[in-house]
């Protein structure tokens, strides 16, 4: 049970990445690889500040701000220099690898016996259960704030930017600026995931972000399958299902591990799972069309 609870906690930690990828991928139609770098940036920055005895909320604020800057840089490279979004993201996440080592001064930061976001309040003495309550609160706040944002006039303009660029420009929106802001928001959410995960697992590591974009993509795709299945149109329910996608993804990985799959094969299993989710709707569709 403890094993699955940990998977659930990890899934909730990834809620930020899932919502972030949802914004960049589904709303703006931009495949954003900056994610790999900004996730690690959030984690390493948190680790560094915590080991220097700064309080957790400063770590969180720094992570969110740094993630936003990273995303904005990708946005500027993509929109102003007209470089393909994929390449812009890869460039920034590559550069961030060095930045992350400079920030932490080393490639690995253990966080043993330090105060963290998970010790801010004590609901129960069971550390994992307490973490679950705190994570549920934080993820609830992320969904509430992002959902509200997407329902405002600004949010509608954001959604229209990825949907019909000619229309929204004719309606007076600077789409370049909108994309830069969108990528900044997406990457600040990703960095928030790095902030949470670092404290949940008790260490920050320079390689923690490698391939993490796949986790976000997988979560969004699972969420999307659920959204289409239940015909969801409400912004709130959509975000809840995207977060549910992140949790389901981690639980599926936990199940495969508990079936005795070698832990070294974890990334392979992850990739195969994502492939499965991407192709599943098409496979069932093509059968209906036959």
């Amino acid at each position: 049970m403890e094993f699955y609870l940990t998977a659930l906690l990890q899934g909730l930690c990834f809620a930020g990445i899932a919502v972030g990828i949802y914004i960049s991928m589904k709303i703006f139609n931009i495949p954003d690889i900056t994610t790999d770098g900004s996730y690690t940036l959030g984690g390493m920055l948190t680790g560094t500040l915590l080991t220097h005895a700064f309080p957790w909320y400063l770590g969180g604020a720094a992570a969110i701000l740094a993630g936003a800057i990273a995303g904005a840089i990708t946005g500027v490279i993509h929109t102003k220099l007209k470089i393909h979004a994929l390449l812009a993201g890869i460039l920034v996440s590559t550069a961030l690898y060095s930045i992350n080592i400079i920030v932490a001064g080393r490639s690995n930061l253990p966080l043993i016996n330090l105060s963290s976001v998970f010790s801010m309040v004590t609901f129960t003495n069971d550390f994992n259960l307490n973490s679950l309550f705190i994570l549920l609160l934080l993820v609830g706040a992320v969904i509430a704030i992002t959902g509200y944002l997407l329902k405002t006039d600004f949010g509608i303009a954001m959604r229209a930017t990825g949907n019909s660029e000619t229309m929204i420009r004719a309606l007076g929106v600077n789409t370049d600026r909108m994309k830069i802001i969108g990528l900044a928001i997406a990457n600040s959410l990703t960095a928030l995931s790095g902030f949470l995960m670092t404290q949940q697992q008790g260490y920050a590591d320079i390689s923690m972000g490698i391939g993490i974009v796949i986790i976000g993509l997988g979560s969004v795709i699972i969420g999307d399958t659920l959204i289409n299945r239940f015909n969801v149109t409400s912004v709130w329910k959509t975000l809840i299902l995207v977060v549910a996608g992140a949790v389901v993804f981690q639980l599926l990985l936990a199940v495969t591990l508990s079936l005795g799959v070698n832990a070294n094969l974890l990334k392979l299993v992850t990739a195969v799972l994502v492939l499965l989710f991407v192709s599943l709707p098409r496979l069932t569709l093509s059968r209906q069309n036959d």
Partner: protein
Amino acid sequence: MIKLSNISKTFNAGKPNEVKAVQNLNLEIAPQDYLVIVGANGSGKSTLLNLVAGSLLPSAGTIDIDGQLVTSFKDFERSKWIARVFQNPLSGTAPDLSILDNFRLAALRTKNKVLRIGTTNQFKADVKDKVALLGMGLENKLDQDMGTLSGGQRQALTLIMSVMDECKILLLDEPTAALDPRSADLVMKTADRLIKDFKLTAILITHNLKDAHFYGNRLVLMGEGQIFKDFSCESKLSLTQNDLFSWFS
């Protein structure tokens, strides 16, 4: 209202595939004029409209709108005066957003989109009244995605959307090219009514010579990036449809 002075637009300048889309063109459009532009494909009509809208910036010359020099203004900066209906019904609306959200954005064309929820019940009631004017029964489907509607319905809604906010100039780029004859007729009539009711200055590009003859108070024939013929008010009235057809034969 709109003044183009010595406007030129050259694509791929200096390369073998250089195209002089618009050359040294002068055009002045008075307030509340309804200008219809006809011309063969590649005559520069769409380029001219994009230059007015700001989607393209001119290679040379100046553009004035409402007495203000806007030559270097981009499309999203000129939206303060200009509303557009595109040839492709998909371009003028956002398919994955609800009809209501599309109207909300249109109602903010000249304003900032701020962090406030604007799709209130009051706003919804306003949109309902406006959409009901079309008589298409769409007023009860405001929460439906725009993408579920037909091209004709979307084009008609785009027209209504253009007058949701203060509007001075309406640009119609072959708005009926993708529509069946009945929808096309409805869209043209709606456009004509809005232009009169809201006292708009309008430019219509069309390949339908019947529409070109029937609508508008000024007719321009374009070719090779220049204005070949220009008929205003009375001289346009004296034109027959056969005159128009003879230009293209």
